[in-house]
């Protein structure tokens, strides 16, 4: 068969495939397509978007409703850190949506086999991981900030009858902004765990254990070692930015804590990148 009368691709309209390299900008666009084209993204984010503001209404509502019957100790606790009261439960639950999504973003590539297509299209794997990290972290950060502010304003309105919470007062703004920052960093952290463990179920279990169990039981370790372990455990360190009162076992300031969380994430990211290049896809 002569080349001119052949079937396929060069017979599709001239230079239909375009030209150009798989540079970082293109990978960003491509990773965004990947993220928005699976349902798990929406389900996970809906969990955050609904649960977080809901509890930021429910908790202040219950407290305001019972304000006159509450004992002075409880009132003082609320008055000391009203923002933490508003967002605390919501973020405790909402963070699982982000964590699960973070794990899935990377681990589902392996469980479905998609990783093969991914690294065939972008054999410079670290570049791909970077693009994925940027896209997903930005998404989580933007959604996290929006949801945090929405949640705060809902809580502020609900509290209006019993107390005034001013965004500008004390550490309030830092805590609200911090909630978004925390979710953004947790997203990246979970994604990196997904990249390291590669099995969705295993990685989700790992992250949930860390958030629910390890971060708490670690404080039972006695002595200075316990304090260090407790303070430097990534999610504990990261969550310091969500409050203005930390337990006396916690050795860091809010921003130091966040920096430790970021440091852990960066360290694991480098490890994940190194393994990604080394390991067979």
């Amino acid at each position: 068969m002569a080349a001119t009368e052949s079937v396929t691709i060069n017979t599709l309209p001239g230079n239909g495939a375009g030209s150009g390299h798989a540079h970082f900008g293109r990978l960003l666009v491509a990773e965004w397509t990947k993220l928005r084209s699976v349902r798990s993204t929406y389900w996970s984010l809906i969990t955050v978007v609904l649960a977080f503001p809901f509890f930021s209404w429910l908790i202040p509502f219950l407290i305001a409703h019972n304000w006159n019957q509450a004992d002075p100790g409880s009132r003082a606790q609320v008055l000391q850190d009203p923002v933490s009261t508003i967002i605390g439960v919501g973020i405790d639950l909402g963070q699982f949506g982000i964590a699960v999504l973070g794990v899935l973003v990377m681990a589902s590539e392996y469980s479905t086999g998609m990783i093969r297509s991914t690294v065939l299209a972008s054999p410079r794997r670290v570049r791909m991981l970077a693009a994925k990290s940027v896209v997903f972290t930005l998404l989580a950060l933007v959604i996290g900030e929006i949801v945090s502010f929405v949640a705060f304003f809902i809580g502020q309105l609900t509290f209006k009858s019993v107390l005034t919470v001013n965004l500008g007062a004390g550490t309030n703004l830092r805590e609200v902004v911090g909630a978004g920052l925390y979710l953004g960093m947790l997203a990246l952290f979970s994604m990196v765990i997904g990249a390291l463990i590669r099995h969705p179920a295993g990685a989700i279990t790992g992250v949930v254990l860390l958030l629910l169990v390890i971060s708490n039981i670690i404080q039972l370790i006695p002595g200075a070692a316990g304090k260090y372990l407790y303070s430097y455990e990534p999610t504990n360190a990261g969550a310091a930015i969500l409050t203005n009162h930390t337990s006396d076992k916690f050795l860091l300031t809010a921003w130091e804590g966040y920096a430790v969380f970021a440091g852990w994430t960066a360290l694991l990211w480098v490890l994940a990148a190194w393994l990604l290049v080394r390991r067979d896809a």
Partner: protein
Amino acid sequence: MIQATALTKRYGTKVAVDHAEFTVAPGKVTGFLGPNGAGKSTTMRMILGLDRPTSGSVTINGIPYDKLAAPLREVGALLDAKAVHGGRSAYNHLQVLAKANGLPRARVDTVIDLVGLHSVAKKRAGGFSLGMGQRLGIAAALLGDPGIVMFDEPVNGLDPEGILWIRNLMKALAAEGRTVFVSSHLMSEMALTADHLVVIGLGRILADEPMAEFIAKNSVSYVLVRSPQMADLAPKLALRGWRVEMQGDGSAHVYDAKPSQIGDVAGTEQLWLHELTLVHSSLEEAFMRLTASSVEYHAGGTAGTGTTQDAAKPPSSPDAPVWGEAAGDGRAQPPAEPDPSGQPPTPYQNSERGQ
């Protein structure tokens, strides 16, 4: 013997199998051919009582499958290789089947040896490759020493040795007088395996005849002639009214003549021959010719296709492929028009040669 009588299956308004009539006789390998979505799987499922016919019937030695007293002793089937509990060993899987059907334990060892899974019989079937799963499925099918065996795409996942093995197995089973019914998409494989063909298209039986007859009916045969004196020979052949098509490599395809007639001409004229071979179409070509000529075959997909496709299509573009059996929602056929441009048939290397 498997016998289908006016066998029909409808899913809602869709007719999957439409008054199918065919008989699968013992002592030979019967190939069951048809494109995706033609009704092959549905038919096989009805034979095994997995689906109920909307009307008509299909019987195993005269009895519907669900009325058989000991079904595994009558029919062994390989439908889905992975229909095994992944946590169970091959041995236990077969043991469970044997117990459920009152078959002796020794039979399990026999079939495991037969399919060559002996060394992995105690391993979890979940770790099996597709080929090993296929062998396990075959072992299960043969467990009850059935007179009838049915295989759906048996060579899936097998390597060349496995493919040869199962082909010989099927022939051996048929030679023992068993009924062997096998579906496949691989025409080249079927050509080597089957003695008889049942061809289904759009739910209807398009052919039910011996392989040789099927090929002869749906093919154009010619005589391949090579000669160092072709320039002298060709006009002599054309003079007899035979159509002579010169090929690029110096050989000629001669139509409407028997090899002996051509040999006689060459002998009379004292011309040298370097080759004189009767060439039939391959099964694949015959199958394509049959299904392409069945008009309804393509009717489903021609409507509502994009225009860019047609514009983009070169003159000799092969058909856009037809697929069917969308897992969930039945058949949807993308554009597929019959051979658009009278592209000359590809000279397949495995054309039938000889008688």
